[in-house]
């Protein structure tokens, strides 16, 4: 191209684009400080709280990655439990049967789930909206039914995870906690880096308007596939952590659709399509769970009611209420136009 709009439009640079803002510097460093403080928690509080915190980490990972999928990519999946289950079983096979190091086994479980998500994406991407949701659920059920056919991995009864059974109970819980914390920091950082990247710009455009994104040159399907694989890998890590913390993988539990219900609740309440929302949503969910754990079904009914109220009246979730007056970013993912000094 000899002449182009570029040459006409580009004049002397009087402005520049900043990625970091004051709030994102504060937000990101607070995130790291909180993570560092959480690392010493097992020495300070009783172990039952530490143990329940592992659940919180698993939920953060699930909510963050489901939000990438649904909040940004517009793919409302209710079948992420497929990858939770595959991740959990991969963990058992890789760490117990093949004797891999725990960390390597978790990373590989994520890879296994990401790879399995690729062919599944070609299947479910033929569906949209509600059909996509049902389709992903069907895939998850199919995976569960396949897995229970294999007595080598426990069939319908499930299988124990014993790679960490040499450790004393206290050390096992503390170690699981640290593994969970580390994985959470890595997954949150991966989400932030993804949204901050070129692919993230495309994904944010897809979130706002898929058609307009396409007419602006975004390869929408490729971006959606990328995030589908990413979310599959994330759910795989969560599954691996479930195996580590509960020391047992039961098909009815890891492949339960309840995981998807929790993810939807968390993201809807926290704020869909934002990086901050799912973290807030997890805190709300986790505190409700601690408060209402003794009430059984009443607790689930209450969660449902809260979820419905948010969907109907608080579309942006809690983070939407907080940042209503203008955009606040706790992570450096936006582009800010500033005058040169």
């Amino acid at each position, binding site marked *: *191209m000899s002449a182009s709009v570029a040459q006409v*439009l580009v004049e002397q640079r009087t402005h520049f684009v900043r990625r970091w803002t004051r709030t994102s510097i504060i937000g990101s460093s607070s995130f790291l400080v909180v993570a560092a403080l959480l690392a010493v928690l097992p020495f300070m509080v009783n172990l039952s709280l530490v143990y329940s915190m592992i659940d919180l980490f698993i939920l953060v990972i699930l909510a963050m990655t489901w939000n990438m999928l649904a909040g940004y990519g517009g793919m409302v999946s209710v079948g992420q439990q497929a990858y939770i289950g595959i991740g959990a079983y991969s963990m058992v096979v890789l760490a117990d049967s093949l004797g891999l190091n725990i960390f390597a086994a978790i990373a590989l479980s994520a890879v296994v789930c990401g790879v399995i998500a690729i062919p599944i994406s070609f299947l479910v991407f033929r569906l949209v909206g509600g059909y996509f949701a049902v389709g992903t659920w069907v895939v998850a059920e199919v995976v569960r039914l396949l897995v229970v056919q294999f007595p080598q991995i426990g069939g319908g009864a499930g299988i124990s995870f014993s790679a960490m059974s040499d450790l004393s109970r206290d050390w096992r819980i503390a170690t699981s906690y640290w593994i969970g914390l580390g994985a959470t920091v890595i997954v949150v950082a991966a989400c932030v880096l993804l949204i901050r990247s070129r692919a993230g*710009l495309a994904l944010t455009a897809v*979130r706002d308007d898929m058609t307009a994104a396409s007419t602006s040159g975004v390869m929408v399907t490729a971006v959606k596939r990328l995030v589908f694989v990413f979310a599959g890998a994330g759910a795989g890590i969560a599954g691996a952590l479930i195996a580590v913390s509960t020391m047992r993988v039961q098909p009815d539990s890891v492949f339960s659709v309840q995981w998807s219900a929790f993810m939807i609740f968390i993201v809807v309440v926290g704020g869909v399509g934002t990086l901050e929302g799912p973290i807030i949503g997890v805190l709300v969910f986790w505190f409700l769970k601690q408060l209402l754990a003794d009430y059984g079904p009443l607790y689930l009914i209450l969660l449902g009611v809260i979820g419905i109220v948010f969907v109907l009246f608080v579309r942006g979730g809690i983070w939407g209420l907080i940042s209503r007056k203008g955009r606040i970013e706790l992570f450096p993912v936006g582009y800010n*136009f500033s005058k040169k000094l």
Partner: protein
Amino acid sequence: MSSAPLLETQNLGRKFGQLQVLSDFDLRVEAGEVLGIIGPNGAGKSTLLSVIGGSVGASTGRILLDNEDITRTSASWRARHGIATSYQIPRPFLEMTVLENLLVASTFAANARGKKAEDLAIGAMKSVGLEGYANNPASSLRLLDRKRLEVARALAANPRILLLDEIAGGLTESEVPELVDLIRHVSASGVTVIWIEHVVHALTAVATRLICLTYGRILAEGEPQAVLNSPEVRSVYLGLDPDGENEAESFVKNRPSEVQKEPNTHA
């Protein structure tokens, strides 16, 4: 044929159900042209642009870019290969800022990276006068500014062919010349422009050729003033007595104030 046109449509047709919006449409657009398109509402103007831009598929016929058949390519592919569209009804990325909206186009349609993508986006933003809103979410813009953003997004795509759909409607008398200057500027840089407009005097100020469409067919085509003065155009589009003298020109001059209300009806 010695040299192929930049863009060509052959027997292009588009049906919506039983409604034939475009039929047997043959168009040749040479590089560097500013092709103006006028015609009554429902003539198929916007459909034509959407079919060329790729957001609406062709029912029949072919579209050639540089003599290469692009009929089956997606809107995204065409955006990446130099065809940018500013739609009549703006569809900004509402939760993204003005700058980010433009960065999407410069990053993906123009395939620019880093500083180059930023320069393109900032340049496009300044050219439509939106730099004061750079960090505001697009959802906070008024309709007229959303239309400016839509034009800027097409410019940020660094196109070879710029498709504009009614970008002057709603502008004030003083703003129209600025817009005309911008398009003249863009055209002078070598960009080919296809521009649908009801504000006819804006169009005739830059158009090198004018087409009047009606019922999905070409009613008249050629040098802008000649098209406006042709009896068919006078009666079908301008609604004037085909043989009246010089009324067309005064009508055209008065037209903008009349169409100022239009954007609201689209919103």
